[in-house]
């Protein structure tokens, strides 16, 4: 069991327990934070948009075409934007820092 750090839309920091094999979206959603994730992780809604705010961004697999296309339907997209349902938690992501994108 590892940990990830998530800042919610009010600016509050949450440390969440993370299981290998879960997606970041599932970890955030199951912890009860306010992430809509309307499509349940199918890369079909862009409502699980987060910013990766520490250097773990370099550890992530690069964005694939599906995710990039879906990000086209999100707003406030930055260089560190990701769809959290497309990131699977692995040990090397321990202490990744994320901020929920505005709704």
């Amino acid at each position: 069991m590892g940990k990830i750090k998530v800042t919610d839309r009010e600016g509050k920091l949450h440390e969440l327990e993370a299981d290998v094999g879960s997606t970041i979206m599932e970890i955030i959603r199951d912890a009860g934070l306010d992430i809509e994730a309307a499509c349940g992780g199918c890369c079909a809604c862009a409502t699980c948009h987060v910013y990766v705010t520490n250097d773990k961004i370099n550890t992530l697999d690069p964005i694939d075409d599906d995710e990039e296309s879906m990000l086209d339907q999100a707003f406030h997209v930055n260089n560190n934007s990701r769809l959290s349902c497309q990131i699977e938690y692995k040990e090397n992501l321990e202490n990744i820092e994320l901020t929920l994108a505005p709704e």
Partner: protein
Amino acid sequence: MTHKTDVVIIGSGPVGLFAVFELGLLNLKAHLIDNLDRVGGQCAELYPEKPIYDIPAYPKITGQELTDKLISQIKPFEPTFHLNQQADSIEKIDDGWKIVTSEGTTINARCIVIAAGAGSFVPRKPPIDTIAEFEGTSVFYAIRNKELFKNKKILIVGGGDSALDWTNDLATIADVTLMHRRKEFRAAPDSVNKMLNLEKEGKIKFLHGQLKSLSGKNKMIKEVKYSHEEKEYSIEVDYLLPFFGLKMELGPIANWGINLNENLIKVDTEKFETSEPSIFAIGDINTYPGKLKLILSGFHESALMAQKCFAYCYPDKKNVFRYTTSSKDLHKKLGL
């Protein structure tokens, strides 16, 4: 004109479509209402090309293929479709319900089946505080009357088919700028090439950017501010056409006095009836202990719902359970 039928189905996703079949086997006629311009719900709108692997007897079938097969399966029952309109209100009448849509279509039916998924598909709107002031006058999410844009400055935003198709289409009559956060597009390659050629010929402009704010007066936009790589810019426009795809919203169903649980409709698991007798809810929209949002579950729910609809429509008749394989009566209904 008021239509009359046995059952109105709200939503023509896979579950609404299959409900036509189960109702049809019991001699019940159905009308379907859907907001979208085509049937198939999430399968057709969100993932037409993606394969589904858990439809019984189909090791692999795409969202669109499943939709097409359902349409051909229900064809013998001649359902009536009312597309491009939202089911807005329902009212109890003597022998059932009166349903009115956003287009004014009125249908009287004995039963209502809500197969509304996660709600109606509606345009995803940019999160800009002032945008509502301009909607319908200077900001449009769908285009009904092209003439409005003649010789005007139009800003189209987005990178999908709608954005590209309208850019190419309006280029001939208006001063069109297309804005997108990157110069790659998830649209048909033909439209992308056409747009790039128009840009090369100077017939449209392309801008990198994301919307920031709008200002104007008398419900008309004057200036749009946008950003790209942390810098802000602005552009003067008459009309803004944002195309950011669709999202699902429960919509008017929330006001129908049916018991809900976090935007889902509570039903029993024998008849899939709601808190309001003779209104049913099947598919993704309902909730009960153990519910799984699977197409498979929605199909099962349809079959049980239909039994109870029969009882409402034919209170004096007994429904004899029969198999489609062997029943002559069912074969006749299926047009065999």
